[in-house]
């Protein structure tokens, strides 16, 4: 009888350990993904080019929102692809939450662009915010890569 209780207790412990391991595999930090890293860099380049172009055209009809509809569509496709990729390991990972904030920023900037731009000073704080976000995203990707290398050693 005592042995039976021991077996049940051992089995329960193993079940609990298995459950904990499963929970632990949902990693909130996310994992390093070189393709996602490259996609983020490409997205940053596209947005930087966009802001530089706008700064040279602002105040002219060439800076109007209507001229940039295709650009916003393209960026939204990139964001959706990246979101899908990052949601595969975990739906609550830090990189995925960061990307959701970045997506909101693009939507908010699009609204501002629709309202009209007439001076370069209207672009600079937004460009600086996007730069800060990408610095944060890429700093974190680098940290994930270092962490992964450290774990393999």
């Amino acid at each position: 009888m005592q042995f039976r209780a021991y077996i049940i207790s051992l089995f329960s412990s193993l079940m609990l350990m298995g459950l904990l391991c499963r929970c632990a595999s949902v990693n909130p930090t996310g994992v390093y993904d070189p393709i996602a890293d490259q996609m983020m860099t490409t997205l940053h380049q596209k947005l930087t080019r966009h802001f530089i172009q706008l700064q040279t055209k602002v105040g002219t009809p060439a800076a109007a929102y209507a001229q940039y509809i295709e650009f916003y569509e393209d960026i939204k496709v990139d964001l959706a692809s990246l979101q899908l990729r990052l949601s595969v390991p975990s739906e609550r990972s830090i990189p995925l939450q960061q990307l959701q904030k970045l997506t909101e920023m693009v939507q908010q900037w699009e609204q501002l662009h629709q309202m009209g731009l007439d001076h370069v000073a209207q672009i600079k704080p937004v460009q600086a915010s996007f730069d800060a976000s990408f610095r944060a995203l890429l700093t974190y990707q680098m940290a994930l890569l270092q962490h992964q290398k450290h774990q393999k050693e």
Partner: protein
Amino acid sequence: MIAPAAEGLAHQMLQALQREMDNVWEEVKPFAQTEVKSFVENLLLIEQLQQQGRINATQAQLYLEIQKNAMRVVFLTIEGLGILAVEKALQAAWDVIRAPVQAALGWTLV
């Protein structure tokens, strides 16, 4: 008026961050300092735009929302760097005890 209080604002934000992340502060400090400074500078630019009449209240709100979201991205990185630092410390501690425990138990631990 943010401008006169800008330096104090950055300092207060950094102090609040340090309080919350004291155990990993040295790891995240350089990144946090740079980004908090950049955040406050951006707030000043937005304030200037509104004072110069280049943006209205609705636009100012959108500018601030963009700023807030950018700062959330930054804070998420700081949070992640903190977790990774803790994981690294745990791994280091585990590496120290792994060999003696393996020797004592006679079988390989993960």
